[in-house]
């Protein structure tokens, strides 16, 4: 396992960092999509998310990471031996779904080795099983094969993975948070998949020379000696993790003010956003932000700050509109607050 670049050492890109922190605090926001120019630390930042995740309790030996307190009724492992389930602590899993993956590894299939050698028909769980109660990360998500996208959409909607292949008939729980990154210039994301992401952070090339110099310096230092580099940032990283643990604990006790709810509804209305995912995402994100900053109530200011992240990707595409989507959200925001 190679060392990954520390989250706190990423220069600039505040919007991206905020989106990732909010996702860690409240996974139910629906994950985050990061898009932007090539070479702007998209993957670096998303990979760094794994360093910030809290611990969770899972059933020992369960390939589906069941919660020891309440194992999923669908779980093939835990439902068979309800008597004595041993619990262990581990960090929330982040599972990589690489582009060249084949369907059998994503949904799971017959364990071919055991089938050929022992003649046993055993189910070998796939990536969706491993990602249950965790994050599923897809780099270059806009380039993912269509049939895999269909499959993901199905499972993401139902929270259950149904496998009907090679004589197997299996269902197991698969509730995960999608995290993706990509460059829209390489091809667009299917709208249905785009809508699945709670937040969408757009990142741009930093044009400030001194910031760019700093980026190069840190990258060079990291490549030269990753261990020493990470050590240098370990206390800042630990501090951030501490803040996050507190925010996660505080989050269920944070309330949302009426004004904040009104603003969220008003924004979705003005931007003519279909469905209610937008309102849910913006409200949850505002609550998470409030929790992060130690507030007890989410107020319009919180809504305002997360609006571009939660709403911009839900706008209807208009080819004749010259402004970028997040700029449109900011414009409407100014209108709604006026």
């Amino acid at each position, binding site marked *: 396992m190679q060392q990954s670049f520390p989250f706190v050492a990423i220069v600039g890109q505040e919007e991206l960092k905020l989106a990732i922190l909010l996702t860690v605090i409240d996974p139910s926001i629906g994950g985050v999509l990061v898009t932007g120019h090539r070479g702007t630390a998209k993957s670096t930042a998303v990979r760094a998310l794994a360093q910030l995740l809290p611990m969770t309790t899972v059933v020992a030996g369960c390939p589906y990471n069941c919660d020891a307190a309440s194992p999923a009724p669908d779980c093939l492992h835990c439902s068979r031996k309800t008597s004595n389930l041993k619990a262990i602590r581990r960090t929330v899993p982040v599972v990589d779904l690489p582009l060249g993956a084949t369907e059998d590894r994503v949904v799971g299939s017959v364990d*071919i080795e055991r089938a050929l050698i022992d003649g046993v028909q055993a189910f070998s769980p796939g990536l969706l099983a491993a990602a249950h109660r965790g994050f599923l990360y897809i780099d270059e998500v806009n380039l993912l094969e269509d049939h895999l996208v269909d499959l993901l959409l199905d499972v993401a909607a139902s929270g259950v993975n149904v496998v009907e292949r090679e004589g197997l008939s299996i269902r197991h729980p698969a509730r995960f948070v999608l995290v993706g990154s990509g460059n829209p210039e390489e091809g*667009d994301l299917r709208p249905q998949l785009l809508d699945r992401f709670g937040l969408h952070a757009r990142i741009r090339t930093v*044009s400030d020379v001194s910031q760019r*110099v700093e980026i190069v310096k840190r990258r060079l230092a990291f490549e030269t000696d990753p261990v020493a580099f990470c050590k240098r940032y370990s206390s800042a990283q630990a501090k951030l993790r501490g803040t996050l643990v507190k925010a996660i604990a505080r989050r269920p006790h944070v309330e949302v003010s009426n004004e904040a709810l009104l603003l969220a509804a008003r924004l979705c209305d003005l931007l003519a956003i279909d469905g209610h995912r937008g309102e849910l995402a913006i409200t949850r994100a505002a609550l998470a932000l409030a929790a992060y900053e130690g507030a007890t109530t989410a107020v319009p200011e919180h809504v305002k700050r997360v609006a571009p992240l939660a709403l911009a990707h839900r706008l209807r595409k208009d080819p004749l509109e010259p402004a970028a989507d997040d*700029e449109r959200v900011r414009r409407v925001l100014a209108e709604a607050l006026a």
Partner: protein
Amino acid sequence: MDTPRLALLMLALEPRLRGVVFVGPPGSGKSALMHGLADLLPGVHQVVLPLGCDQEALLGGLDLEATLQRGERVIRNGVLGRADGGVLLVEACNLLAEGTANTLLGALEDGELRIERDGLSRRVATRFRLVGSYDPAEGQPRAHLLDRMGLIVRMPSAGTSDARLSIVERHLNPTLRAWQDEIEMLRGVLEVARTSLDAVELTAEQQQELCATAVALGVQGHRADLFACLAARASAALALRDSVQREDLEVAVRLVLLPRATRHPTQESPPSESPPPPQESPEPSATEAQGPSTDSLEMAEEILDAVDTELPAVLETLPFSRSRRSRAGSRGSTEGVRGRHVASVPGTLKGQRIDVIATLRAAAPWQRVRARRQGNLTLRAEDIRIKRYKSKAGALFIFAVDASGSMALNRMRQAKGAVHSLLEQAYVNRDKVALMSFRAQSADLLLPPTSSVELLRRAVDQIPTGGGTPLAATLLLTLEVAEQAKRKGYGNVVLVLLTDGRANIGLRAERAGVDDELQGIAVTVAARGLKTLLIDTQRSFVSHGAGQKLARWLGGEYLYMPSAGSAAIANAARTAVATP
């Protein structure tokens, strides 16, 4: 030393530069150079990535024969895994199938691949140096792939006859004495440079200068800044200097930054980007790439002066600049020939490709029941799984919009609307669109073949209008775009021509000969199998019949739609692509 060989040495010295790609026409000595890297690095092996390489060959997988024989899982390494620790050669990297290019760039970036295929889950180390080449006349590689290779070298065009001769000699007789001597000498230089590389000093001011140059040239992302710093130090080490000098900075700019330029530094920000600054500008959007700031220009001035003359040529021929950027290396290519393997279904072997793994999987559960003899597998006809392919490449719609005359902007709006409507469908059909405008003397490609709504939105809105109607030039550009698309597997190309006039500007012909010349080109277009839809938007009822005539020459369809809406145009285009 000439630039291409210097680039090779730099990569040999500094693996963190990841790769070098040579850009030039056939016969410019690219191949000979590519093989040179392995010569420079004794003991380092070289692996060739064949163009038609499929995912299985690229990534490796289960070795069935050995697995069955030994009764345990045996894994065969793929091309990328075999290249670990060595040199990977990729010729014509612009023609790689999309899946291949995506996998390759991931491997190059991370030095490691995650493979989740055919029941196997593993990590494979892929630390290699990549040497690539392509001929820009055959289309551009994906900018993503190119961006991950540190050095981009344009081959000197039409080299001196001496240089050409020595390339030929080397090719004919690689053990030529002089060449051997040169290799020996270069290896010696490398060895010395290697010991001093870590100590080469790159001052903070020099770093700043490189970053400022990147900003001034509108380079996207931050990978290039890093490559530039590494390149400057490598260049100094190779010249046996202990600190970076001005000429090293120039080398870095020439090989790393200049090829990635998206604008001329003295120009304003590119017209197609830069949304108007929001009234209330929060932190992140203040960092957005606007025009180059004056202080970055000042910092970069000296370097930019030195390379100034090379810039326009680079902007014209390399893929990063906005005006020429193409979404290349696209879906299709070798995959397009028979499509992409999407599923395995029960079937018979007649003329089909068997999916061995899926077949074994299907048979495996029944082995006990079938009273399997030790070591042998019982297969029955119903176990057979055949591969079902889906042709990946869809159709390419080329929209050519007449920008002469008064209704030009309106026509352009309608065309953009139609293109957008087609792109929404493209999610399903894998179609692509290109957009060009024509007026006065020439036709311009505003949007190279793409399926990105994002790029469409950014494509220029404000096109110059007025002037004559150069239909011949338009058809020629169409042919060029269509030929490139065909090489990438787009069999079905539809030209949608929106015009209200008759051709009055020829390529070479005088006014009287314009029609004949146009007819000649139109017949060629028809002969290449392009489908054409000519939409006549003129409002006067007195038709000159020019539109009908051209449509007839093109073997295409003629539609008179003086107030055509975008939906109607998109529908007509869809109908045209559906007709055989």
